[in-house]
């Protein structure tokens, strides 16, 4: 495809991230949900979610991530899982584990859930519950047992940040002991809540280096003990010189639907206020994927300016993350500031220079809008 002839080629999406609800019993200060959380009253109904899932299948989606908030807060979760699986899609449940009893795990397995991603906050209940703002750690240990007991493959997800990165080795050991086939360690990303808390979450270079060693040692330790889980480690892009290929390119492989039906190219994209927001209740998913201004805004390379425009890596990293560019510079079309070639790289370097400066007590915890606080705390 010559860029001059056709600015981009749009292929069918592979994945849908369905944020079923923003309700969650946890209050993690690095939550990937937007600051403006959707209240329960604005959530799509069961029938509306089923329609979204069917439309997604029709345009090529073969992988459905049922996420939140806490998706278990939706009583219709088994019904939605069954609907998705009936279309042939791979059904991945992304959960905190709070409320995931043995019975519910068995029911979800029976309804066609293929795989579960369970979050852990830390190796011990004390610091884990502190950062979650809830007594959740013990529930998670029980949930892991319920998941593996139901025969479901388990990935344990951990967000690493300054407060827990020193315990990387013990966190991995716990995940392995819980029966995880995969352990996914991801350094906190700095959008939304994470950006609000960047000064208390960003690890120091020394902490990061120590965790890299800890991960390598854990790989050796657990490989030697048997088959060993797959340990995936995603390092903060702040410490990389080049940007990550965010979402494998804007609106290239995946789409996100929020609790109220907003359709986004990535879960963070609602921050880019310069783009019109599409909604599944107002426009067919196919039209949004192929024809909407928001989805086409950063496809291809035509939107780029230098240094991206002439960069040989532009087809591999796609200029990095559009949300990060918007968050830090106010212009979503600029080069991701984490790139060493970006004229805005000083924004990242100054944050790194301050890493380690504030005590952990300064977290801004994730909280729902005041009017919604009661329904959220009712949880499931």
């Amino acid at each position, binding site marked *: 495809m010559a860029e001059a002839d056709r600015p981009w080629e749009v292929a*069918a999406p*592979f*994945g849908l991230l369905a944020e079923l609800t923003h309700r969650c019993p946890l209050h993690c200060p690095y939550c990937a949900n937007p600051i403006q959380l959707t209240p329960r009253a604005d959530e799509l109904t069961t029938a509306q979610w089923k329609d979204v899932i069917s439309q997604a299948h029709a345009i*090529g989606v*073969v*992988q459905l991530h049922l996420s939140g908030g806490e998706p278990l807060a939706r009583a219709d979760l088994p019904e939605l899982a069954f609907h998705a699986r009936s279309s*042939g899609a*791979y059904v*991945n449940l992304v959960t905190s584990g709070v409320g995931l009893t043995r019975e519910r795990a068995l029911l979800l397995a029976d309804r066609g859930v*293929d*795989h579960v*991603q369970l979050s852990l906050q830390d190796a011990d209940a004390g610091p884990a519950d502190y950062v979650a703002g809830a007594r959740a750690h013990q529930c998670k240990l029980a949930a892991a047992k319920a998941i593996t007991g139901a025969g479901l*493959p388990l*990935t344990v997800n951990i967000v690493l940040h300054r407060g827990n990165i020193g315990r990387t080795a013990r966190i991995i050991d716990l995940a392995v002991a819980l029966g995880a*086939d*995969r352990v*996914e360690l991801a350094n906190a990303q700095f959008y939304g809540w994470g950006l609000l808390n960047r000064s208390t979450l960003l690890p120091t270079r020394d902490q990061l280096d120590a965790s890299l060693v800890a991960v390598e040692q854990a*790989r*050796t330790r*657990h*490989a030697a003990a048997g*088959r*060993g*889980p*797959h*340990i995936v480690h995603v390092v903060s892009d702040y410490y990389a010189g080049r940007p990550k290929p965010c979402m494998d390119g804007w609106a290239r492989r995946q789409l996100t639907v929020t609790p109220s039906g907003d359709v986004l190219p990535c879960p963070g994209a609602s921050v880019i206020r310069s783009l019109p927001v599409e909604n599944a209740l107002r426009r067919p998913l196919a039209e949004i994927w192929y024809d909407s201004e928001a989805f086409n805004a950063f496809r291809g390379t035509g939107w780029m300016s230098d240094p991206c425009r002439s960069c040989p890596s532009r087809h591999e990293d796609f200029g990095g993350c559009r949300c990060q560019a918007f968050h830090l510079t106010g212009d979503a079309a600029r080069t991701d500031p984490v790139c060493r070639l970006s004229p805005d790289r000083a924004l990242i370097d100054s944050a790194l220079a301050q890493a380690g400066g504030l005590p952990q007590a300064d977290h801004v915890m994730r909280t729902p809008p005041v009017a919604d606080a009661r329904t959220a705390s009712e949880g499931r």
Partner: protein
Amino acid sequence: MTTGPTAAVGPAPAPRLGPGVRFTHDAARAADLLLLPEKVLVLNTTAAAVLALCDGSRGLDEITAALKDRYEHVNRQDVIDLLARLEQHRAVAHG
């Protein structure tokens, strides 16, 4: 899991699909797909033929023999290399 050179890792003795991995045909794309927890692999004909035989009961020799029954020019080393690559993707595991 170490990630050494693929030749040294070698294929599992009786490979089967890894945990949480599903093999499917996608009518919309007219392609065989491998669905994994965090990714989707679009399979070429060779990979699809090999994966269809990875049920945990066949060893490398049986897989190669079954392929030779159906296709010409089946090379054992190619099968070994393909299985090693799939193992690195965590698409196949030990039987």
